[in-house]
């Protein structure tokens, strides 16, 4: 359950996000849309700790996460994706998944030498978990392939696999369908719906409005840093302010 109150952020004179407040109740998939430069990416970075906010508060299940470093927010189960896929090219697909799993005791020096069995056991468990996720995403045959050699669409699926390895409670996706072909989009959407059924909340930033309409029960629309609409995507399409945000204002004739 994410609560955002009066979040404001400006870069010098430019007011990127202005007094935005909203709540993600227990809705499965929520979408945030808006033309370029509307501030939705800035808000996304603020929610995940990559940008500091000037004013306002953010709560995720009672935890105040405003201005907390990204790794602390991530450990609460708020996991994000990046607009461009960022595979670790020299590792296999399975290693890409295992590498990002949280709370690995093998990542601190002491247990490595003084409780090696615990480390080995956790490694095996992570390996099985990774293979499970790869099956879910139908990427199992590529498990040992170097991540750098995957197609763009496969890398997007692998990115989703990495998010699943982090035991997410709320997934924040930054334009998941940008630049991938329709068949891959259908596969991605299918996986997202299945995650929803398992109770994982998804908050999706997208400017592909038709996809948002199909996927999201609830939509927020932002324009020049302000939240101008909150409701179903059907109403959004008919709301004059949203139409004007997207199509602009016709002026006096030439």
């Amino acid at each position, binding site marked *: 359950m994410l609560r955002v109150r009066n979040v404001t952020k400006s870069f010098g004179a*430019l007011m990127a996000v202005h007094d935005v407040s909203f709540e993600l109740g227990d809705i499965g998939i929520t979408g945030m849309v808006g*033309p*370029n*430069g509307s501030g939705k990416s800035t808000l996304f970075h603020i929610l995940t700790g990559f940008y500091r906010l000037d004013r306002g508060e953010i709560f995720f299940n009672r935890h105040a996460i405003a201005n907390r470093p990204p790794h602390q927010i991530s450990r609460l189960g708020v996991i994000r994706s990046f607009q461009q896929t960022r595979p670790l090219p020299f590792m296999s697909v399975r290693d890409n998944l295992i590498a990002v799993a949280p709370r690995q005791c093998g990542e601190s020096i002491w247990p490595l030498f003084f409780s090696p069995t615990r480390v080995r056991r956790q490694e095996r468990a992570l390996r099985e978990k990774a293979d499970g996720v790869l099956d879910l995403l139908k990427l199992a045959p590529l498990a040992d392939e170097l991540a750098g050699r995957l197609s*763009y669409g496969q890398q997007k699926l692998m990115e989703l696999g990495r998010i699943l390895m982090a035991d997410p409670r709320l997934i924040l996706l930054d*334009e998941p369908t*940008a*630049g991938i072909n329709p068949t891959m989009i259908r596969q991605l959407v299918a996986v997202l719906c299945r995650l929803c059924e398992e109770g994982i909340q998804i908050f999706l930033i997208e*400017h*592909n*409005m*038709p*996809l*948002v*309409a199909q996927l999201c029960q609830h939509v927020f629309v932002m324009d020049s840093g302000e939240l101008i609409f909150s409701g179903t*995507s*059907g109403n*959004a*399409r008919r709301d004059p302010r*949203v*139409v004007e945000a*997207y*199509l*602009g*204002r*016709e*002026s*006096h*004739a*030439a």
Partner: protein
Amino acid sequence: MPAGTRASSKPIWGGKAMLLEVDRINAGYGRTLVIEDVSISVDTGEIVSIIGPNGAGKSTVLRTVAGQLIPDAGAIRYSGQDITRIGMAERGRRGLMFVPQGMNIFPNLTVRENLEIAGLLLEDKAARREAVREALDHYPALGRKKNQYGRALSGGERQLLALSRTRILRPRLVLLDEPSLGLAPLLVDHIFDEIIRMTRLGVSVLLVEQNARKALSVSHRAYVLELGRNRLTDTGARLLRNEDVQRLYLGG
């Protein structure tokens, strides 16, 4: 050949060539293709705009025409000559001017210095100095601040400074990438008035704009792109009333 002269070369096969013909270009960044088989054309004296939802590849088309990006396939012909692989400076000398999106002035140069650099392509020193003086007189807002640094200008003034390069170079075709980005509505109208005044100088305009209605209201013709492909093309007026355009942006 200093820019601005009117000698438009006639193609040998008769029939006057369009000022600009973009023929099925494919381009992208790294391994991902952003635009596929996109074709557009602009004729002398026209304002043509390219619109479409985000990520449609509008800016990529413009940057390919400007020469900032070399297409993987397809050709670009400018007044009959193939310029697909020619550098930006040479395109500028042939009268093709590009105003990029966002930061399109030099923040740490004064307004006058910005204009002098803008006129760099005019080989003749005297012509350049005269053009800069004339531009400063023509835009009093810039004239008053001619010794101030670019970063001290407001959003609207910066865009005006970027557009004023047209008055200096007197190009034949100007490429504008989202001139209204980040500007308040009132300023957007002001900037578009300036664009219209440009055509009175005999300058044709190819415009990429997110504010679709505004662009359509000033364009003779427009192309609508979706997911990197030509989707629709028509006159500005007819597209304003076309239902498909709104559905493309908002779905449903």
